[in-house]
């Protein structure tokens, strides 16, 4: 065990997998010598050599395409897209190719790649360093979409993603890289040190894909969320005094529907929280599923708290970021209905 930040835990996952499986390799823009702009691959090139962890040209379509080709050969590439905002040039390779290789070849070819990308706001990155594009991937058949919220899960999920034979979109909440930010930006920055989930085994372990976690048990209302918003929801529960049960989905597709329905059937109320824009966001899917599975248990309309339907504006970080006040207000509305 060691106390790790989320970046260190991700680094440890890649380290473990590079060490265990000679078919695993890590590449992307600035990930080799420099160790990545967020340091997620620091030291890996030094330890495993330039053929296992290397820099690529600035061509996201090319990065994913060569990963698909390597996967076809039998390797297990782990690629980094420097910011999720820069994944769009690779969209065709992800959607039309990686996601469908298995299906269109009747299992003859697979795309066992992991595409890591930092996502989300809270760092004054403006509209091209802050987006949360998960719904663009959850909508695509054949892709697994994973979003961790703490160091322990980040490592275990990333190892599962690398070991998976399906293409995994692994979105990392960059605002959580170095501490469990709960949206209270006016307060001093907190670090992961001392947080229970920062205790991370040094060796190999997995957190299974497709399984949610209960981040906070509660009886009054169910909160469905993931990534940075898990910590915001925890703060909102504390601030409002509402006994919310907070579900950290961890994997969006395939979704752990059992954990969701068990909780909503217990509480009868549901608030969905994500940082991504609201319209056609993953919250819409969650809302529909809860309605389909739990309609007769619901005692209040389902609430959604999400990013506004605008690009992420540089100046208005905290007006845009769905912070604890907005989540607490939604919890209250759900309780009052």
């Amino acid at each position, binding site marked *: 065990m060691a106390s790790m930040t989320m970046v260190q835990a991700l680094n440890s996952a890649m380290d473990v997998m590079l060490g265990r499986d000679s078919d695993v390799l890590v590449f992307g*823009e*600035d990930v080799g*010598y*420099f160790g990545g*702009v967020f340091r997620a691959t620091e030291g890996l090139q030094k330890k495993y050599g*330039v*053929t296992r962890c*290397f*820099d*690529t*040209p*600035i*061509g*996201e*379509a*090319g990065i994913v395409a060569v990963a698909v080709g390597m996967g076809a050969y039998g390797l297990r590439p782990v690629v980094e897209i420097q910011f999720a*905002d*820069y994944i*769009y*040039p690779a969209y065709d390779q992800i959607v039309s190719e990686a996601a469908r290789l298995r299906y269109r070849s009747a299992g003859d070819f697979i795309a066992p790649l992991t595409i890591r990308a930092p996502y989300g706001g809270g760092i*004054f*990155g*403006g*509209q*091209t*360093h802050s987006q949360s594009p998960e719904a663009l991937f959850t909508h695509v058949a054949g892709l697994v979409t994973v979003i961790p919220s703490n160091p322990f899960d980040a490592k275990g999920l990333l190892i599962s993603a690398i070991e998976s034979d399906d293409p995994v979109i692994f979105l990392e909440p960059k605002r959580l890289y170095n501490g469990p930010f709960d949206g209270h930006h006016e307060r001093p920055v907190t670090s992961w040190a001392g947080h229970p989930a920062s205790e991370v085994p040094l060796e190999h372990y997995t957190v299974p894909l497709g399984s949610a976690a209960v981040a906070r048990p509660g009886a009054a209302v169910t909160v469905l969320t993931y990534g940075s918003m898990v910590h915001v929801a925890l703060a909102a529960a504390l601030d409002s005094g509402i006994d919310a049960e907070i579900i950290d989905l961890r994997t969006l597709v395939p979704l752990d529907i059992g954990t969701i329905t068990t909780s909503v059937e217990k509480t009868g109320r549901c608030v969905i929280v994500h940082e991504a824009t*609201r*319209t056609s966001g993953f919250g819409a899917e969650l809302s529909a599923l809860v309605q389909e599975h739990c309609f007769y248990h619901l005692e209040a309309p389902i609430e959604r708290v999400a990013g*506004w*339907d*605008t*690009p992420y*504006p*540089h*100046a*208005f*970080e*905290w*007006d*845009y970021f769905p912070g604890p*006040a*907005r989540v607490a*207000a939604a919890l209250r509305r759900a309780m009052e209905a």
Partner: protein
Amino acid sequence: MADSPRLSLHIPEPTRRPGEPPDFSAVRPPLAGGLDRPAVDVEASAIRDLAYGLIRVLDDDGKAVGAWDPHLEPETLRSGLRIMMTTRALDDRMVRAQRQGKITFYAKSAGEEAIAAGQALALRPDDMGFPTYRQQGLLIARGYPVAAMAHQVYSDRSDPMQGRQLPCLYSSRAHGFFTISGNLGTQFSQAVGWAMASALKGDDRIAAAWIGDGATAEADFYEALTFASIYRAPVILNIVNNQWAISSFQGLAGGEETTFAARAIGHGLPALRVDGNDFLAVYAVTAWAVERARSNLGATVIEHFTYRAEGHSTSDDPSRYRPAEEAKGWPLGDPILRLKTHLIALGEWSEEQHTALAAELDALVREAQRGAEAAGPLAQADPTVKAQAMFGDVYAETPWHLREQAKAMGEG
């Protein structure tokens, strides 16, 4: 099968890393003035050698020599110097503001100022620019107020972009400066479209686009070359090869195998490779490409061979991936110093004038900064201003769901 050797993969690596002395032995700048200047209606296939050479005008003594000497008036030279020095003064001041926590981010163009300055003066003011975040000099050259740049960088109440963009991602249609994207490469092929439109409409304006060496790996780069070539679009396609793309040396974009200018050859486009730290040479090659485009002879690719003298942006520390002393060893010198030396050699400038200009520009950018600080952060403006800045311009007409969200934001 038995006879084939085992395959192995080549992974490009720069020759020097931190802790080692800089190595520019691969950069062997030819003497200034050595290359011929072809007629602008030359066949692209007849000038392929220029894609591998290096057009230089200023020699080591600051004299302008050779066929590419644009014979500029001293007044134009002084304008160029002023644009470059304004750019550097603004960059220095804004980086200082970032270090003091007053702004979130900044990207300098230190060492590359001659490119935007020289090209702006060779283009017509109404020609359209599709820049990256390192062509702030183009805005300055076209008379965009430095004060407005500071407002943008500060995301303050007078920010022309209403706080929507990261610092340095300017936009000004009135100054022929296309809104800068954070996503690399996209502007390169868009510029071709603008140029195609100008040709379709029988206009006489041309377009110019810029891209970094690193970003040439994006598909947009090749699409730009293909479209520009087949439609003979009136566009100048500039590659700013400053040797680095964050921590990645230009070899990772293919600079080890051939030049960036040579990418044009397979597309049948003429290419010029120029000393990007030589204001006169930059001006001269641009003027050549401008004349060619304006004579309906189509696009030109220009590689500006230069060096990113400082970090990528305020977000990185270059001494983590390249020798700390590397910038000092760059064989093509500093563009401002070289033009200054030239002007002094001509008897058209003096140390005293230079010092006075530096002081004047320092006062100008300080004044711009004071203006930005006085305006105050847009983030603290009143709710209606904020709602307009946040929800306006998403669509031509704000639909019901955005109006609802704006209201919800106002209510907290």
